[in-house]
């Protein structure tokens, strides 16, 4: 029995492998024989490959602050999808309002989750952008010490104008007729997205985002493009719902990607120098979605390094 999970590794720390999560849009699971891994242009040794039948921890982070007509269908769809997850999946529930908070520890009981989700109050401020970094820290810690598959699913209806922090740069002096500084209003949004991106540059768990409301004004476009960028950079994906009717399908799509997720532990040797790792995964006949580059200070895969 390991008695020191969070303090020291159970065994002497060896050179940690690089863990790469990937998922398929379609097709059978990838086997060791199928998978070819290239790191920085050279073939890499595959140490371990998990399959969809291996244990999965899914952290669902709810960032719901707005319209009931969107939130309620999302809750219903989420409860339905969680109920359909295989028993090897432990689902934890968190909410992003007023700081990331745990609503339910990961577990395999879906009933309790349903009750919590159904009874969740939705008033509040958007908190998604503040949730990425602590969530990444939390998941990195788990991945560094266990071999489970792990993913984070954010369900959000957040608008960039509903954050406690001001990213919209509202007009202060309405009498200032020659103001050019708001001609390109997305500057603060892009800055914050890049900051978050840097914060999770070394995070291992893929991020999946379901945004309940697609918007196309400039600020919303910058925000939602930023979410897309963050999800893709982590090896995950983002879906934006154009109508209420899109919500169940979007959540189902994300769940499908999450449960089929696999992880590859790849041998990784490098000095203690901060370095970018270019990753290339190939499995014949299948399109793989994964994180293509990572900023690491080897041999410490799984740690934030910048």
């Amino acid at each position, binding site marked *: 029995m390991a008695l020191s999970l969070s303090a020291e590794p159970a065994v002497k720390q060896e050179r940690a492998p690089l863990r790469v999560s990937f998922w398929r849009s379609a097709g059978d699971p990838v086997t060791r024989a199928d998978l070819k891994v290239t790191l920085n242009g050279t073939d890499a040794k595959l140490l371990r490959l998990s399959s969809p039948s291996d244990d999965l921890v899914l952290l669902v982070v709810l960032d719901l602050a707005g319209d*009931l007509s969107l939130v309620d269908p999302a809750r219903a769809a989420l409860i339905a999808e969680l109920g359909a997850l295989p028993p090897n999946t432990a689902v934890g529930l968190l909410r992003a309002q007023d700081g990331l908070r745990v609503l339910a520890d990961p577990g395999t009981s879906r009933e309790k989750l349903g009750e919590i989700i159904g009874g969740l109050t939705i008033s509040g401020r958007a908190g998604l952008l503040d949730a990425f970094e602590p969530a990444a820290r939390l998941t990195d810690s788990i991945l560094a010490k266990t071999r489970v598959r792990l993913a984070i699913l954010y369900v959000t209806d957040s608008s960039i104008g509903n954050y406690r922090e001001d990213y919209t740069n509202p007009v202060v002096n309405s009498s200032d007729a020659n103001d050019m500084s708001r001609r390109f209003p997305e500057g603060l949004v892009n800055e914050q997205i890049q900051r978050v991106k840097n914060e999770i*540059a070394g995070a291992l768990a893929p991020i999946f985002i379901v945004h309940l409301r697609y918007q196309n004004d400039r600020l919303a476009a910058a925000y939602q493009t930023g979410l897309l960028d963050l999800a893709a950079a982590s090896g995950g994906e983002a879906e934006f719902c154009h109508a209420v009717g899109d919500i169940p399908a979007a959540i189902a799509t994300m769940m499908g990607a999450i449960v089929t997720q696999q992880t590859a532990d790849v041998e990784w040797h490098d000095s203690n120098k901060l370095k970018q790792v270019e990753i290339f995964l190939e499995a014949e006949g299948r399109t793989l979605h994964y994180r293509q580059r990572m900023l690491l200070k080897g041999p410490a895969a799984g740690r934030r390094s910048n």
Partner: protein
Amino acid sequence: MRVAVGALLAACLAFGQNAAKPTELQRAIEEFKIQSRDMGLREDSPSVTQHNNGTRKWRWHGRLFENFRSDILDAVPHEVAQRGGNKGILRRNQYGFNLTGPVYVPRVYDGGRNTFFTFTFEGTREKIGQTSLRTIPTMAERAGDWSSSVDSAGQLLQIYDPQSTGKNAAYNPAQAVSTENLEYNRAPFPGNRIPTSRLDPTAQKALQLYPAPNANAGPFFQNNFFVLSPEVNTAGGAIVSVDHTLTDKQRLTFHLNYSNGMHGSMRLFESAANPGSPIVDRRSRSAGLTHVFTVSPQSVNTLSVSASTSQMEYERELGDDGQPFPRYRFSPYLSMGRANPNTKSARNTYAASDGFSCRRGAHRLGVSTQVIAEQVHIYAPQYPSGDFEFSSGLTSLPGIINTGHAFASFLLGGTSFAERSVVISPSYFRKPRFLVSGGDQWELGRGLTLSVGLTLDSTGPRTEKYNRQSTVDLSAINPANGLPGALITAGENGAGRGFQPWLTKLDPSASIAWTFLKKTLARASYSRSYSPIPVYTSQWGTQAFNGTPTWISANPQLTPAATLDQGLHDSGSRTFPDKRPEAANDTVADLIEPTGRQPTYQSGSLSIERELPGLFVVTAGFDHSDGRNLLLSNSGANPNAIPLTSLGYRDQLNNEAFKRALRPYPQYQRFEVYSSWPEGHYKRDAGYVRVEKRSSAGVSLSASYEFAKQMDDYSGPYGIQDFYNRKNEWSMTTGSTPHRLSLTYVYELPFGPNRLLFHNTDWRRYIAEGWSVSGVTSVTSGDPMGLRPQFNNTGGVVDALNVNVVPGVDPHVSNPGPEQWFNPAAFSQPADFTVGDASRTHPSLRMPGNQNHDVSVNKRMAIGPEQSLELSLVGLNFINHANWNDPDTMIGPASAPNVNAGRIIGSRGGRVMQIGMRFSF
């Protein structure tokens, strides 16, 4: 460590006492619990870890910024370069800061997760050049010498001596007045020079404040005054907001905004006679409190109250006599003096609302109510020193166009119309409004949603705190002439406080959204709404308390209404308030529309949105909107207009007494309806296509094209020709652009660590990373063209005369350019006392289009985990594109055609650069 061991022990108990090795999943769950506790993400986390909301970040964040602009960075504006200038005027600093985070008062209060504030301050100091190209009298003309003055065809413009006027004994009333059949004989000034002794001394004194010509853009002596003058503006303001979580179910948000600004308009003259806009001090304040109560997971109540005030004070500019300079108007020359030289106003708005929404099954139901109280406090004497209008009639050959000149009449001191504002007291207007709304969003089936809503909108009339309001009751008998139309005052003799009824209307709306194929969404919507008549920032409708004595010429071709040397002297000894029913007789009387008809808008839309592979979203749609009872100003509505059938009286219409008898309410010269007469109609149809592309590679792009057609019966700078036949006025809306193309894009360049290129992790990353390019491009076609005849010889019956169409002549030219944008030969000046047969705006001729390309290049540098510096270079009109000015649309008579018609003088615009710096922490 103790926590970790405890957790593991608990884990052991949970996993069984047989000491089986925990599975990977169990280990992961335990690690989750331990880490989330240590990070302060749980209820049972140590309190000290909870303050930072689980992040490692600083508790307070913010930014400092400065945006700088200077003419040394800009291209010389095209309009300045074309007048021989080599630089504009621009110096601008915009600076400020933002701070946000939990409220923390040492030893008193720690807001932690619950109380959060944001404070933003921004200030501006600016000096920015504005340009104007106008026409002013030549120095010779000011001295009375018109021997070189020409008309728009380049022919000598003859000035006649009004003192030589005499009845033509040979005049044949059965024939139209013409040079061969003059009603009055009048001799030209010898040598076309007004003798010095005849020049009005008041006019001569005023002209000392009038600048000399300084340009020669032409044609002839036109466009001879170019001004490049700075606006000096300052602004400073702040936004404060505090967000407090009372409980998991209740939240309070408070916001407070204040802004002080001084808007200094450009000066056309460096004297008290400056006709430009005044310098305005502005102060605005607003505050609001919102309480959100989540009654249950399926129901939310939002209660909010707010108050705002916006105040303006025009800076007084006084002449040598300590009084504001009068307003002298002698079109087409630039006037002297201005309206409202001494105005103060405050607009206060108080609002309270409550909204409740809940979800029941497939229905999302919502009800809300709102109460709004609006106040306008104002003191605004429009013309305290008088408004004097001069026409060419006094120096013309009576009845003959293209003779005489308004400025020559000014030199003689004879005005055709004058009025003076006598404002005794400020006005304190009030207007209430109540709204109750209900709606249901019903999910009919998978992918099909129907939304319906209904709003009960109840609006009260404008009232005045002390009942100091008046209007003309069109049914009351005027004791002066026994005809309908008499002045009434609020709250007296049976009149209501507001002259209009309380209006309660229902605004319905419905929409449907249907996802009928994968990733394809169809939307349709319809709505109808009523708009309340606003409370304008003006003292219109207080004529019994604040008078407007008016002087009207008995015949502007023969006698002046008043002369400058004698000034404006009220007949009798009027004192205010003057509530007599006949008190507004012989004036432009304020008229409040009595029925309270409200502007009504209707709109419908249909669109299809399709998400394509590659994160493309294509939307195509059609919008329709129309409106009726739209509020019109004097140029679009005249309840006292003379019917066009009266044009048959021809030259008799120059006689004010004769003409007045033809008006529906002859005791009034006309009515002042102040943008509140509900008679306008419009219709707009537009089709559009929009393509949006979002990419995880940091690209965001949106392109849209719209084709629209908008028509109405009121728009345009000149007014309408026939107030009694609005169908004849139905034409393209002035200012509506049929074609509109826009493109916006943002590209985060893939440079730096964790990016595609230049992913060095050493010092070079500071150079490589953080670059982005943004842009906005818009291209629009020109507005519909409105053509005007140069002369309006209808005896004042028609305010805005249309041109005639010359049959068989194509108004279009093959290669429109500045030399000839359209073919003026396709149009002609209507004959005297006839109306034009062309539409108010041309159905196919357009003004020049516009295009604009703005680009921003940004560079971010992370200088710490949470600190970054961003530099930006913004270029408005980045490629320094020049947009053509509008062509001259004035059509002259065949005897003296406007040689400038169809030509464009110059272009405008120029690249403007701004350097910005922002430090974020």
